[in-house]
């Protein structure tokens, strides 16, 4: 009897785990699935006396995007009060993929946005953070959304492909917060709205385009990197995947895909142990994806000219990234950590005054490129000669003349 009573008592306690009532329950955030609105993208902008948020998500099995807006004194308040809007559904932030932050808000309150994501258990640390330049995040979110193109899908597409074309990298909240904690500064991907001709009616009015990296500082502040500096930063931070580059040659031009770029960073010390300089070596591997003009790839000198040009472009990118970082006095390229890792004992004295040493530290960059392959076509078909009829050209090629 005693055992039965105890078992019944224990089981009755399990009722409190159900969360099916608003009374005695541990589960405070139980929601019915048909009432859930899964937010995928949050756009946040500075308002005169607070923060405006626009969220875009999907509900149930509906594929079309739904958007809601709210304003609050803080990001937390604006998002928290979404529940008070006549949504008819509960906005759930657990699957938020990206947060777009307007330039003004990022300049003053990026830390607050990161803090909210870290603190609020519903959100993920791997939420991508994007700063919207030359416009508001809300307008971009609205403009991207069309009948067949939910904004989160468009942004997810950019996220998948941005590194592949070498235009940037979506840093996550975790990476940014970690860099801010380690270096007092961090890089964030920027995007901007692009007005384009609508090729089909069901798409949104705007497109989204990468706009380089921004440098954010602990405590506020924002600087923007040029495209070249952004490429250099990607190379040195090992966020680089691939990039398509046009190489002008004396006769014609090559388009290559630079599919590998390994950056090796080494500190060099003087005899007395002082840090003398940092050497950066880039090793690039490229594949020819198209040839125009008279460029003869079987000619070694042509290939060497292309390789030299490629090396020059990437070396300049790395140099400009380092120079900008030193000019700002912000080590967002993590050189201190790399030097420490390379020479933990030798570098320790030099790294003690890193903030003073870093801006004036000589950094030498060299790059070496190799054209790896042309994808089986060594001698490409010639282009039509000036004024030549395309049919005549085809006949000429077929005859092998």
């Amino acid at each position, binding site marked *: 009897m005693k055992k039965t009573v*105890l078992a019944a*008592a*224990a089981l009755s*306690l399990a009722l*409190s785990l159900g969360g099916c009532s608003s009374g*005695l*329950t*541990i*589960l*405070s*955030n139980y929601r019915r699935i048909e009432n859930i609105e899964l937010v995928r993208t949050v756009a946040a902008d500075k308002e005169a006396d607070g923060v405006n948020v626009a969220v875009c998500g999907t509900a149930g099995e509906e594929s079309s995007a739904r958007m809601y807006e709210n304003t609050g004194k803080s990001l937390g308040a604006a998002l928290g009060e979404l529940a008070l809007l006549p949504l008819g559904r509960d906005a759930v932030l*657990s*699957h938020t993929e990206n947060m777009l932050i307007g330039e003004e808000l990022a300049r003053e309150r990026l830390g607050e946005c990161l803090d909210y994501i*870290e603190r*609020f*258990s*519903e959100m*993920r*640390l*791997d939420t991508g953070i994007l700063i919207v330049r030359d416009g508001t995040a809300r307008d971009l979110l609205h403009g991207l959304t069309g009948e067949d193109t939910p904004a989160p899908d468009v942004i997810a597409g950019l996220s998948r492909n941005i590194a592949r074309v070498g235009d940037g990298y979506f840093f996550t909240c*975790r990476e940014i*917060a*970690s860099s801010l*904690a*380690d270096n007092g500064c961090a890089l964030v991907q920027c995007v901007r709205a692009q007005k384009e001709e609508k090729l089909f009616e069901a798409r949104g009015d705007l497109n989204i385009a990468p706009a380089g990296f921004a440098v954010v500082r602990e405590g506020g502040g924002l600087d923007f990197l040029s495209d070249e500096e952004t490429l250099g930063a990607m190379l040195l931070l090992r966020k680089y995947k691939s990039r398509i580059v046009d190489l002008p040659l004396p006769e014609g031009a090559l388009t290559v895909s630079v599919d590998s770029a390994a950056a090796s960073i080494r500190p060099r010390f003087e005899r007395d142990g002082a840090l003398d300089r940092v050497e950066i070596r880039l090793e690039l591997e490229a594949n020819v994806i198209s040839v125009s003009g008279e460029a003869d790839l079987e000619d070694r000198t042509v290939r060497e000219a292309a390789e030299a040009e490629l090396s020059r472009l990437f070396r300049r990118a790395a140099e400009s990234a380092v120079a900008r970082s030193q000019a700002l006095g912000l080590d967002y390229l*993590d050189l201190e*950590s*790399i030097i*420490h*890792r390379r020479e*933990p*004992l030798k570098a*320790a004295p030099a790294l003690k005054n890193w903030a003073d040493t870093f801006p004036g530290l000589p950094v030498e960059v060299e790059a070496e490129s190799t054209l790896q392959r042309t994808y089986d076509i060594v001698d490409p078909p010639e282009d039509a000669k000036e004024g030549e009829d395309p049919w005549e050209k085809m006949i000429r090629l077929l005859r092998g003349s």
Partner: protein
Amino acid sequence: MGKNDTVTERQLTVLIFVSLLSPMIRILPSSSVALAGRAAWLSPLAALPAGAALAAFTRFARKNAPEGVGLQDMAQLSLGPVGGRLFGVLFALWLTFYGGFVARSAAERLLATVYPNGSVTVFIVVMFLVALITASGKTKTLSRTAEVLMPVLILVIAVVLLSAIPDVTAEFLLPVTYRDAGKVLYGAAPIFNVLSAFVYFLFLTGHVRRPRGERPRRVNWLALLVATAFGVTFFTLGTLGDKLSVTMENAFFMVIRNLRVLGIVERVEAVVVAVWVVTDFIFLAAILMIVSEIWRTVTGVRRRGAFVPPSAALSCAAAFLITKNAFTLQAWSDFIVPCVNLFAAVILVPAVMGIGKLRRKY
């Protein structure tokens, strides 16, 4: 104690392992990283020799103790009836308070990680009611529960840690040089502190029955705990870095928030947190059991069941009164509880056991 309320050596060691996972996750990796920086992932390994030495000493001290004798009996033999009882009362009071602290910490963790708008009150009350029912039962039942849960816990920990591999950045973990040796040892202190809590379970050794002529089968709880601590610290540090990790109270659960198991299942933190709640519950029930066991020996009463409800009530009251908010709870967790635990587990108990050994009482 009842003759049929016996456990094997293996069951007791499993109970120790499952129970100590609860305080382990409360302090790791933040406490260790705050002291050792990026070298903190080596600290669990550095804590192993000290933990092993303490375990070896206690095993040596009770080597010749007769079967059915627990730590409280040994204390009364070592210090005499008055001194031994005073020792027992002090420990019972400390563990009653410690039980409240464990429950409150578990409740705060649950709210911080999964149920931000939940109620601490409901969680604590439910926790104590379940622990009360379990602690009123046999030691064997609790040990068997831990034994059944251990493979589940190990599986969850293994899956979680393996899933975290893609997020680990070598830069957050290296370099570590001989100059970091001091930091690594500092970082080992909080881990050793948790490991040393195993001595509380010596109060239950009176229930252990050794099969005649056979070597006792044990689970190497120390190696398992150190391996878990290593995994938790290594993956959290490797994912967040040392400076970001120390800003978080539950950095490990932050990492879990991001996990995708095999790339298909995500948002698994509720399951992992729930698994850790099970360890909290086992630990709390074990503490109530230990407290009642101490009172039983001190008072000389035959059954310990009567002592469980008042102990649970006092402990529950401590859980509510210890602090009004999570801020001061952190202060308890960072300083007061570790200090008292260190004194009780590393100084007081070995001293009492050593005195008994020197006086050839067992």
